[in-house]
């Protein structure tokens, strides 16, 4: 398969009032690549992800998805968002819906799938994340790791071209982190294009094609995970790594 550019960000800037959160961000992610984003809290990692799926609108710059320049004037952003899956730190499952209903909701109400078809696909996804036996359970009955796997299945149900993960394991008890990372790894192996905000260095080393260090709204260093973590070129990267490891 040719290496199509899935995400292309150029000179992206975003401010909240006086707070300049993203500064001239440039980033290109090819098809099937996995990119890990690291950086201190407040450095703009979440905002960058949110700009890539248009939950937040950029102030200036360019965001291309699947080779297509996306602007709110020319695109239905809801449609674009359906093509970019997102997994949140706090899962954000719909508590009033069962696991199966969580996964079926968007295919039925956004893609207008017939119920039976949506159900079949949702079941297949739940099987994939190992939670088919929980299909009729409400989220409150699940462990954090199970919740996050349902959230992944829910995002996959829209057949996204890209998956964004915003600290998917930081709200989990340590013993539950592994099962979520395993699901993500499997997804990566299937060729999903992924951007992952995480401080799980082991996962980044094993799965990511490259890693990005962000500091105060800028991309400070980009490199192969092994190199970036063990032998950072920038002093700021090194300082950060020393502080988290």
């Amino acid at each position: 398969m040719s290496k199509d550019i899935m995400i292309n960000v150029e000179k992206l800037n975003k401010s909240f009032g006086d707070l300049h959160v993203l500064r001239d961000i440039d980033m290109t992610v090819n098809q099937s690549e996995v990119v890990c984003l690291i950086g201190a809290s407040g450095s703009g990692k979440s905002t960058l992800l949110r700009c890539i799926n248009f939950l937040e609108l950029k102030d200036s710059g360019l965001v291309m998805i699947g080779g297509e320049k996306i602007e709110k004037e020319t695109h239905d952003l809801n449609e674009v968002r359906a093509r970019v899956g997102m997994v949140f730190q706090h899962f954000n499952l719909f508590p009033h819906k069962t696991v199966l209903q969580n996964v079926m909701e968007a295919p039925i109400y956004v893609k207008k799938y017939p119920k039976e078809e949506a159900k079949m696909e949702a079941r297949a996804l739940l099987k994939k994340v190992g939670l088919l036996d929980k299909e009729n359970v409400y989220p409150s009955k699940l462990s954090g790791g199970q919740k996050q796997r349902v959230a992944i299945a829910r995002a996959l149900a829209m057949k996204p071209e890209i998956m964004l993960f915003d600290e998917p394991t930081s709200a989990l008890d340590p013993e539950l982190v592994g099962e979520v990372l395993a699901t993500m790894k499997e997804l990566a192996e299937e060729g999903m294009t992924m951007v992952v905000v995480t401080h799980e260095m082991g996962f980044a080393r094993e799965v990511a094609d490259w890693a990005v260090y962000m500091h105060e709204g800028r991309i400070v260093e980009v490199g192969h995970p092994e190199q970036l973590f063990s032998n950072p070129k920038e002093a700021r990267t090194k300082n950060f790594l020393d502080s988290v490891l």
Partner: protein
Amino acid sequence: MDLLTKFIDTYPVFLKGMLLTFEITIVSIFIAIFIGLFFAFLKISNIKILEWIADLYIFLVRGTPLVVQIFIFYFGLTAFNISDFLAVVLGLAFHNGAYIAEIFRGAIQSIDHGQMEAGRSLGMTMGLTMRRIILPQASRRALPPLGNQFIIALKDSSLASFIGMYELFNVATTHGSLKYDYMSYLLIVAVYYLVLVLFFSIIVRIIEKKMSSSD
């Protein structure tokens, strides 16, 4: 004549009064829920002028006595050949709508922002996420205060007696003045109200239980 015989002698009339009390309450709350939802959406619209309109409405309702509101609706609307019943019902709906708007607004805003984000990240529009994700959760949270408001409205409906509706309170005072025995009939009507309130409290609790089965 003791209280019990008075109770038994008058129950057909009181039951009729109770039915009217019941009708006034149900219909006015039903309308008030739509008014409340409408103004709750204005309040959370993030559009200044719409928020002001909602604030003004709530200020008018909170700032004037209910009995004044009912009289204004009564004299205002019956002049246009609108029935006494409808005038009272609309007056009560206008009043309760403001409180219900605040109940809905609070309930909607209490839902974690992540729910809207999750819905939108799946490609759902804001409206669809509101309808499918936020409102079902918010209505569940709104149910206890709504039940409370319903009971307040039930008791407030006694003010309809001032414009001649023959509901529970009016039945009681009419009997009281005819028989020169206010106390007995007021005690009797209090029992009717208590039974109604108890009945509705139980219904609300049952609905709450059913709705919370997922938590």
